[in-house]
């Protein structure tokens, strides 16, 4: 049977989490349909139809869908459900906000944040902040799942020519209105998707000191992340938080600076390929999972690393 992937996007471009979710869908079916709910999304529909794995792009284009209020989008999804064996959405704040509502409308139990697919009905998901891994099986009429993006490769965005189908908007009475979105603009790579992540913790001491981290990140073309302690202390915005209740990341290189390594932080980054920890406290638990540990004062170490990287670049050029 066919699998439906609910696209995460900003009305102009797909978020990369959508491409990871399509790769997960490939493990379940060859007939993958991509559902895009939004406003003025003609161009987005055109660019999405070239995704090789997608057989059909389903579009619902309406001004009321501009801000993706889940009360409006969930009935549109549940209305399509009978055609599908599985409905998938990224396990981002977008998917977490939306898919459980669809599960309520369909009266099925959703499986959250899957990191692996064993078969059509058996899935792998982390529990207890990733300190245990659960294998679950279900025989429900339809399987709803949110997918952890970092556990699946991004699919190719080109090479396909999917059919495009427009469906009509179903209006619902909604009492919620969108006011505003406070989004920080940055030229650095997206945190969930970057090859290198440089993260700071309480050891940075204040928001001004985070500039040190930004300089290092720019040298490495890295995204910046933070521990919950740093966000709670107001050093940096919540969108940078890595951890159980923040973002999950799995870059090739993760550099933890002044982060002690609370369980809930490790949950968000321990799948990284190479982990570096820089902390003056030798007892910090972050060293237990680091490939390379440096026990040093970060205010000395970071400028030195930047200098060493500059030297390397000079030698190479």
């Amino acid at each position: 049977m066919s699998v439906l992937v609910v696209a995460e996007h900003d009305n102009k471009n797909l978020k990369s989490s959508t491409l990871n979710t399509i790769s997960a869908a490939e493990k379940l079916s060859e007939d993958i349909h991509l559902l895009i709910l939004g406003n003025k999304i003609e161009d987005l529909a055109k660019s999405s139809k070239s995704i090789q794995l997608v057989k059909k792009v389903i579009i619902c284009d309406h001004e009321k869908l501009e801000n993706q209020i889940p009360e409006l989008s969930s009935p549109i999804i549940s209305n399509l459900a009978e055609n599908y064996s599985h409905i998938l959405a990224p396990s981002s704040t977008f998917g977490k906000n939306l898919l459980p509502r669809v599960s309520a409308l369909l009266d099925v139990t959703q499986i959250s944040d899957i990191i692996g697919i064993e078969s059509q009905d058996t899935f792998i998901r982390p529990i207890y902040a990733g300190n245990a891994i659960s294998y679950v099986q279900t025989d429900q009429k339809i399987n709803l799942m949110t997918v952890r993006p970092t556990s699946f490769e991004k699919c190719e965005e080109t090479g396909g020519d999917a059919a495009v189908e427009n469906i009509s908007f179903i209006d619902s009475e909604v009492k919620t209105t969108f006011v505003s979105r406070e989004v920080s603009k940055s030229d650095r790579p997206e945190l969930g998707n970057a090859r290198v992540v440089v993260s700071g913790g309480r050891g940075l001491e204040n928001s001004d000191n985070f500039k040190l981290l930004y300089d290092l990140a720019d040298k490495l073309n890295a995204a910046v992340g933070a521990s919950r302690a740093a966000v709670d202390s107001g050093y940096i915005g919540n969108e940078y938080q890595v951890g159980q209740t923040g973002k999950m990341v799995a870059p090739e290189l993760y550099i933890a600076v002044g982060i002690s390594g609370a369980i809930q932080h490790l949950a968000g980054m321990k799948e990284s390929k190479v982990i570096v920890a820089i902390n003056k406290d030798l007892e910090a638990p972050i060293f237990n999972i680091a490939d390379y540990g440096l026990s040093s004062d970060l205010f000395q170490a970071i400028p030195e690393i930047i200098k060493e990287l500059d030297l390397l670049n000079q030698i190479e050029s």
Partner: protein
Amino acid sequence: MKVLVAVKRVVDYKVQIRVKSDNSGVETQNVKMSVNPPDENAIEEAVKLKEQGLANEIISVSIGDDKSQDVLRTSMAMGIDRSILVKSQNTLEPLAVAKTLKIIIDKEKPDLVLMGKQAIDDDSNQTGQILSALLNWPQGCFISNLKIENNKVFISREIDEGIENLETSLPAVLTCDLRLNTPRFASLPNIMKAKKKPLETIDIDTLGIDTSSKIKTLKVIEPPKRKAGIMVNDVKELVQKLKYEAKVI
């Protein structure tokens, strides 16, 4: 305004959990249990609404065995007026939890439902969203700020891109982020007082809903351990290792 807070009893967040040797689950016997952390934020917010004169009655509900009374007593020690325990020997999935809460809500008729955005044991992050859909009430998830004025509700939600601000109305279901507030510690006199506050018990079998599991757990295993790393002596060695050994820069 009447506020209902949903509270879950979970393994304390500081406990290093252990997977059972028969791989049937995670050990919860003889382990310190506590209020699910973001549920504490929900309790705190309800107590604040009462202190501000916006709420006149605040109640808490938990679903679980007799031991779940302790998290309800904790909520009353923080300032909740009275509690309801829906007694269930089985662990419920989010859909069944939301259906159970809906029955309590139909009876208690609160104007606002608050709960944590996620339980730190199964990390599902579903119950509030499902409940909002079942009630057909507005949904506000992952909130880090709440303001209520003349029946209007202004919320800030923590989203991956930053903050989203929404306006909605009562009744509503809101799920709380850890940054919404700082939960208070219950003082000893308040812990004593909480022992005398009303705690009603309802047997889940009397509610007439399907609470059976739809998801079967085949096995629970420990995550793969990372290979032990090395300590480097200085920055120069670190950069050399990253360049020539790990080849990641």
